């Protein structure tokens, strides 16, 4: 309750009421006094004037002596006014109006003010100026009609003031509500700002200067807050984005470094291995050459050669992965016919449950490359895609196009430089690759397949080929939905050919 009374509107109303409580009685009694005074004065003046007028008649010569005439005059004096009493007195002789009741005779005291003696009758006595006689005219007038009039005026005044009070209260309530409305709007707005909703503009229209200025100040505070908030948010977002980018880059760099280390290690081992293979090949071949044709040892030595050749091809793959083989003098080749040729070969190899789509619309996909390695890249990626499909089949789509790599993309792929690239995308609808495996798939001998199915070198070789061609490979995968590999090879512009 106290809270309600402490609002600005309630205060305004209360103060208004207090002022009225003091002023209205003052007004009421003041006005009433004036009205009463004027009524009484008029009454007194009237009766005195009337009596004087009557006295003039009686002073007229012979009027008092003519008894009949005098009585008639007294009668008409009573009739013509609020008279309750009219008589002439000379010594003990009393001459009265016949219209007066008998018991009204005798007792009177002269009034000098309205309402004196409390008998509601205004008595007055006027000595008549008649030579040689002591005659007085005595008159009594009823005060009640005037008192009634004053009462009536009092009632009307009370009604008028009461109506005025009601109108005042209504006006007060209305005005206070109206005056505090912009304040309440400001309050709502500032609460919203406090709650964090500070994007709405503060709009308070008020003709009251203080409120208008308060609104303006609050609005400028809000807009500054919004500005600071926005720049803070932006800063946070930028920082988060930078952190994220750095994390991605760091993880990418770690992968690259890991592959590099593994590549150097594998390359070293491969070279040593080749040295070891030299005497194995030479002695075995020499032995085969020297043995008589019918010797049963031929078959055994052939097995030695077969295994040695497998070792040789494995070492070759490792060298490809570690960029330590192949032709350093790349020549300009069109990737499209190489991809077409590889796909033709693949069609014969993969079962009909697998749909092989191709979109090789791009023309002039010229890159500086080793033809054989590009062929191997396509074969390896497609075999990998095929092996990702389960027995129920699925589809592999191969898309070749040209794209522009911008600075933004280069930031995430440090191996690339901004410019035109030939992009080979190979998508399968297979089982996909888990998050953990994605980071490792290009490592040599990393395989998720059963032992004996694949060497775990296929994607390592693809990576090695892409990087040794100044390109890169990306992989996106969603477990259960499929995988997309994209190989980027820098385009050799026709003018440079």
């Amino acid at each position, binding site marked *: 309750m106290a809270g309600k009374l402490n609002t600005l509107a309630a205060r305004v109303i209360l103060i208004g009421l207090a002022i009225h409580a003091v002023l209205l009685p003052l007004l009421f009694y003041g006005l009433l006094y004036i009205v009463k005074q004027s009524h009484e004065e008029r009454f007194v003046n009237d009766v005195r004037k009337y009596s004087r007028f009557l006295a003039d008649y009686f002073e007229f010569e012979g009027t008092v002596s003519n008894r009949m005439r005098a009585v008639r005059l007294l009668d008409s004096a009573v009739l013509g006014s609020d008279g309750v009493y009219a008589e002439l007195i000379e010594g003990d002789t009393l001459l009265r109006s016949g219209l007066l009741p008998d018991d009204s005779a005798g007792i009177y005291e002269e009034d000098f003010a309205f309402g004196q003696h409390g008998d509601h009758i205004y008595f007055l006595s006027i000595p008549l100026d008649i030579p040689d006689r002591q005659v007085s005219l005595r008159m009594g007038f009823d005060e009640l009609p005037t008192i009634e009039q004053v009462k009536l005026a009092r009632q009307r005044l009370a009604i008028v003031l009461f109506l005025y009070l009601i109108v005042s209260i209504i006006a007060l309530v209305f005005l206070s509500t109206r005056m505090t409305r912009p304040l309440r709007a400001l309050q709502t707005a500032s609460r919203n700002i406090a709650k964090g909703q500070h994007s709405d503009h503060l709009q308070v229209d008020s003709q009251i200067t203080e409120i208008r200025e308060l609104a303006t100040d609050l609005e400028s505070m809000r807009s500054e807050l919004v500005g600071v908030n926005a720049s803070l948010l932006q800063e946070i977002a930028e920082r988060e984005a930078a952190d994220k980018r750095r994390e991605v880059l760091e993880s990418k760099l770690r992968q690259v470094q890991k592959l590099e280390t593994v590549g150097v290690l594998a390359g070293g081992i491969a070279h040593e291995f080749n040295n070891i*293979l030299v*005497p194995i090949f030479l002695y075995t*071949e020499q032995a085969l050459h020297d043995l008589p044709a019918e010797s049963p040892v031929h078959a055994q030595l052939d097995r030695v050669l077969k295994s040695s050749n497998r070792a040789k091809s494995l070492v070759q793959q490792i060298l490809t992965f570690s960029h330590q083989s192949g032709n350093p003098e790349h020549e300009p080749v069109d990737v499209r016919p190489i991809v077409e040729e590889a796909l033709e070969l693949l069609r014969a190899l993969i079962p009909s449950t697998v749909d092989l789509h191709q979109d090789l619309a791009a023309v002039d996909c010229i890159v500086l490359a080793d033809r054989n390695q590009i062929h191997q890249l396509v074969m390896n990626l497609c075999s990998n895609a095929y092996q990702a499909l389960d027995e129920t089949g699925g589809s592999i789509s191969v898309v070749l196009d040209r794209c522009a790599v911008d600075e933004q993309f280069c930031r995430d792929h440090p191996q690339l430089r901004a410019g035109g690239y030939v992009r080979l995308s190979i998508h399968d609808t297979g089982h996909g690759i888990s998050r953990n495996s994605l980071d490792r798939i290009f490592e040599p001998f990393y395989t998720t397949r059963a032992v004996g199915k694949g060497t775990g070198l296929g994607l390592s070789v693809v990576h090695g080929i892409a990087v040794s061609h100044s390109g890169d490979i990306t992989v996106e995968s969603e477990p259960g939905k499929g995988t997309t590999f994209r190989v980027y090879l820098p385009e050799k512009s026709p003018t440079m050919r």
Partner: protein
Amino acid sequence: MAAWGLGVARVDGDIDMASILIIDDEEDIRDALQMVLESAGYEVKVASNGNEAIELQREEPAQLVITDIIMPEKDGVRTIKEMRQESPGLRIIAISGGGGVEPLAYKPGAITTTAYLAAAKEVGADRAFTKPFDRKDLIQAVDDLLGKLH
């Protein structure tokens, strides 16, 4: 040597004894090459590094040098260059692909085995082989370079 009588007979047929110098830091490879070429009828000398080979060549020149490329002390490319300067008519086969490989930079354009062989050819090697290689291909190349019909 008696076991390789057929080969010796062929060498004997030439006016100049066709001799081959093998340079490789790996004994197993030297031995294997020596065995294969001797059985093909050539006189074979061996050296384990470039300096030794150059000295040997000055004393007793061979017609054909088969050299490894990546070796300690003096690598194959420099050895070929110096030998070529001393004896312009010398036939040279370069072989590469193993032994003491330094960590190659993991980046495009890194020097690869193929690059070494290309460099060897540049400075005067007649043929280049990548390890491992076929016995038949080697004998074929040697025969071609020494002008023999196989």
